[in-house]
């Protein structure tokens, strides 16, 4: 496969208009709309938009992105702005790497060991459920394979990683992505409400959405929507560990689904797509996680000063600045993410894949909620 598109550096100037719109949107939200919402009295409650609707810059940013695409621009981001919006995932990944400054190695080990059990269990359960439902709904095997990993791990990346291994067509991947994003948008907006209504603390909420929400970007958005603060022990710091544990399992899940797919093929077709686990680990491992680990190590070594843990010294100036910059970078990334939610595409992804996606997505979401409620007293704070 030859990639003929110009390199990143050459495309960067063309990203300026879209990036300018994203930056301007977030500046207006944070400097004008948020302060206005905090002061506005509605139905006798000061700051009704914040206290009752739990609106913050994160949700507003995504809503603006959504509105740009589906309302202002009639379903398609204009070409002149497209490349700017294509930087959103870069920003989100950068923010996640910087998030490593929230943790020490001890905190990672504590949270990670909780996450591994929950995530491991849910990934396996989801893959098995999708493979079984795929057979029940008589879905194409390639479609089922892609959906299995998309629904069990992290949506878009997992779907794209699995596609070549199970001979998936572009339409299969597109359906999977549309289903994930569609369901994810719903969970993104309702999760903070449910979390607050159930009296979840940041740890419980982060563990729930880190397990139950399908797409990485939406986990991040839902965490920040619940608590927009970026600090150790906040929802985003918990949810991202869960997210990273899920993302790391991509090569293993691709391998497992590949084995399932080829085991069911009647003829000995082209085996060149059937790759070993070692090859998949090298090819599919999300390298940005190494950046996150490096930040954790640097933080643990005290390179950035004190992190401001509970009952400890206050956070250093470097750490405080890192956290402020992170909130902006996430904000930019999530405005861009909103611009990728296309209601028409989601509506067109109907039929059996959507039914399967909704059943599995809803099961995972509710089951993760029940597990967190049952084990809330055992979830250890960092």
């Amino acid at each position, binding site marked *: 496969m030859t990639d003929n598109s110009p390199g990143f550096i050459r495309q960067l100037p063309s990203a300026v208009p879209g990036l300018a719109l994203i930056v301007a949107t977030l500046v207006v939200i944070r400097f004008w709309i948020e302060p206005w919402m905090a002061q506005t009295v509605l139905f006798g409650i000061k700051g009704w938009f914040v206290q009752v609707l739990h609106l913050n810059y994160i949700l507003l940013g995504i809503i603006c992105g959504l509105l740009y695409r589906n309302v202002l621009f009639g379903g398609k981001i204009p070409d002149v702005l497209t*490349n700017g919006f294509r930087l959103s995932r870069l920003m989100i990944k950068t923010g996640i790497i910087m998030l490593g400054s929230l943790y020490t190695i001890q905190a990672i080990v504590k949270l990670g060991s909780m996450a591994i059990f929950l995530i491991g269990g849910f990934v396996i359960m989801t893959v098995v459920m999708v493979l079984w439902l795929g057979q029940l709904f008589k879905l194409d095997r390639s479609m089922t394979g892609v959906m299995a990993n998309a629904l069990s791990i992290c949506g878009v990346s997992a779907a794209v990683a699995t596609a070549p291994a199970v001979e998936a067509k572009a339409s299969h*991947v597109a359906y999977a992505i549309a289903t994930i994003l569609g369901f994810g948008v719903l969970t993104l907006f309702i999760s903070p409400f449910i979390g607050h209504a159930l009296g979840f603390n940041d740890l419980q909420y982060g563990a729930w959405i880190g397990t139950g929400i399908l797409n990485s970007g939406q986990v991040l958005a839902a965490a920040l929507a619940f608590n927009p603060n970026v600090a150790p022990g906040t929802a985003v710091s918990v949810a991202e560990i869960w997210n990273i544990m899920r993302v790391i399992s991509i090569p293993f899940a691709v391998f497992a689904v590949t084995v399932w797919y080829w085991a069911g093929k009647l003829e000995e077709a082209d085996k060149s797509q059937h790759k070993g686990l070692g090859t998949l680990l090298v090819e599919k491992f999300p390298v940005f996680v190494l950046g996150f680990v490096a930040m954790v190590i640097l933080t643990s070594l005290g390179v950035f000063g004190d992190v401001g843990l509970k009952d400890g010294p206050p956070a250093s100036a*470097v750490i405080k600045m890192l956290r402020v910059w992170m909130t902006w970078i996430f904000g930019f990334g999530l405005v861009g993410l909103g611009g990728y939610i296309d209601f028409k595409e989601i509506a067109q992804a109907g039929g059996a894949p959507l039914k399967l996606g909704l059943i599995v997505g809803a099961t995972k979401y509710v089951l993760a909620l029940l597990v967190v409620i049952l084990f809330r007293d055992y979830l250890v704070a960092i």
Partner: protein
Amino acid sequence: MAQTDTTNASAAVDDKGKMTLFKDDRAEDIGAIILTVVLVAIILFLAR
């Protein structure tokens, strides 16, 4: 045919709704690491 479909699957999706300026996820990951290094360097300079 399946080979072509498979080979083109990711590329076709990438072209149709390409969500990155990079050629693939791996390149984007490296880009994110580089951007982080630059930002952290700036922060270390400004905050000290």
